């Protein structure tokens, strides 16, 4: 379970980085 928690945390954090990147491109495209 401890390993699963670490893995899930990494996945969710990577997901947030992905969101930051997507919104960054969306904002860039809006200009």
């Amino acid at each position, binding site marked *: 379970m401890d390993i699963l928690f670490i893995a899930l945390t990494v996945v969710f954090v990577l997901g947030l980085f992905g969101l930051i990147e997507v*919104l960054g491109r969306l904002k860039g495209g809006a200009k």
Partner: protein
Amino acid sequence: MMPNDMLQFAFFLVVLLAASWPLGLYMARVYQDKPCGLDKVLGPFERLLYRASGVDPQGEMNWKTYAVAVVLFNALGLVATYAIQRLQGLLPLNPAGLPGVDPFIAINTAVSFATNTNWQAYGGETTMSFFTQMLALTVQNFVSAATGMAVMAAFIRGLARRETDRLGNFWRDLTRSILYVLLPLSVVLALALIGQGVPQTLDGPVVARLVEPADAARPTPEAAAGALTAPSARPGDATPREQVIARGPVASQAAIKQLGTNGGGFFNVNSAHPFENPTPLSNLLELLAILLIPAALCHTFGVMAGDRRQGFAVLAAMTILFALFAFLTIQAEGTPNPLLAGTGAQSAPSLEGKETRFGVAGSALWAAATTAASNGSVNAMHDSFSPLGGMWPMLLMQLGEVVYGGVGSGLYGMLVFAVVAVFVAGLMVGRTPEYLGKKIEPFETKMAAIIILIPPFLCLLGTALACVAGPPDAISNPGPHGFSQILYGFSSMGNNNGSAFAGLTATSPFWTGAGAVAMFVSRYWLIVPVLALAGSLAGKKRLQDGPGALPTHGPLFVALLMAVVLVVGALTFVPALALGPVAEHLALFK
């Protein structure tokens, strides 16, 4: 509503609004790096912290860098909180000898405290060691609140600045929020609570000999809950003769849990416990602490935006909505239960689930305040409220935690609603909408839509999943009330509130797992678009108000802002509420 209830309510509001003004001005100086008084004492310590951690406090960040810093810092806190819980059996400050926390509970709790939700799927006094309470949970109380305040400061800078991509420095905002706002206020409140009798000790629990031993053949609720089984009880003795009375560093946690709108509590029943909230005065102080910083931040916004009237307008919208819902909750709880007709108690207000030392007004007002802010600590069991008395606090959460809301998160949430309000007004009169001189264009509208729609999506999806696939024994009542318990649970977690209908058992893997996902997404998947929105606004020119622009500091805008908040919340949740509290109310008062 009785005159006494009205008086309590009015007194609370007057003190809250009076105290919010000087604190708001003070916090504006903190976020604008101006001398604030305490910097003379704490300034050297602040600079030492920057040097020790290698941070350049003057280095400004764009929205992406700011968001990455927020995510990484919070991820680190998440892992640390989980690790401390799992390892607490090996760590010091554990006088009760509590073992490591169950992994599902530990995951849920780590996410809960890192996201400023403080949903508790455990009983604090029987699950968490002092080490965990202080170094995992209380630390998260400070840093999660400061994270919200930092993001709010960045968002206000996005509105106030022009033609730049710089939003401030996350590390500086975080540090200054803790050092100059949360820490001093917490020390003052903790000392006041200790003065009222709240324990602050590292000694373990005490064992009291019962005057009248419990009857094993007729177990009391306390015995059934295991509160009457002392470690020294004789093996095989089925009649508990002693009671374990938990205590610990309660005052320090109670102070920050209220000021940081974290919620939860040292004890399982939070501020209903006589050690966490012993007197009517401690009740008033804790109640004020819940809403003080979120209300004061409206003035901070006005000062930082260069127009104090803007802060007053947002505060007015929040206060009117709060007063409306608090009034409705007190009114509902003051209404006698019709099932008591003919029993001689039909004229009495509903006192089930309430502490008699607080009464109806003190309990109902707390319920409204704790759900209006993203606090979530309770001083009464909301599950025992009347159907409508439980519905109004639930709806306050479902509005998106913007009626004061969490520290920082409430204000940036309300400002996002303000963006939507000017967009709606722009559609009505056919003009490009503007807020504080910034044009609201498609990107800003998309970000606002994401921010506003994610929490309701999580609440309704989670509720639907729990009804279909959740453990059926999680709810204590069948029918509409059971549905209310589920809806309340996901409304609380999906909006980072943390309060619970007491009848819900949320310790199963489904509830801890689904709840952790809801809390995580509703916090960080909102913060990222909030910062993107701030970054976009910061890059725009600030236009001068023209004759056709909607003034955003007048009563018309306040009414429009409240209407947008209410319409979005009502359209989203009324169908679900009709299945729960409304159906229960109609069945009770048929």
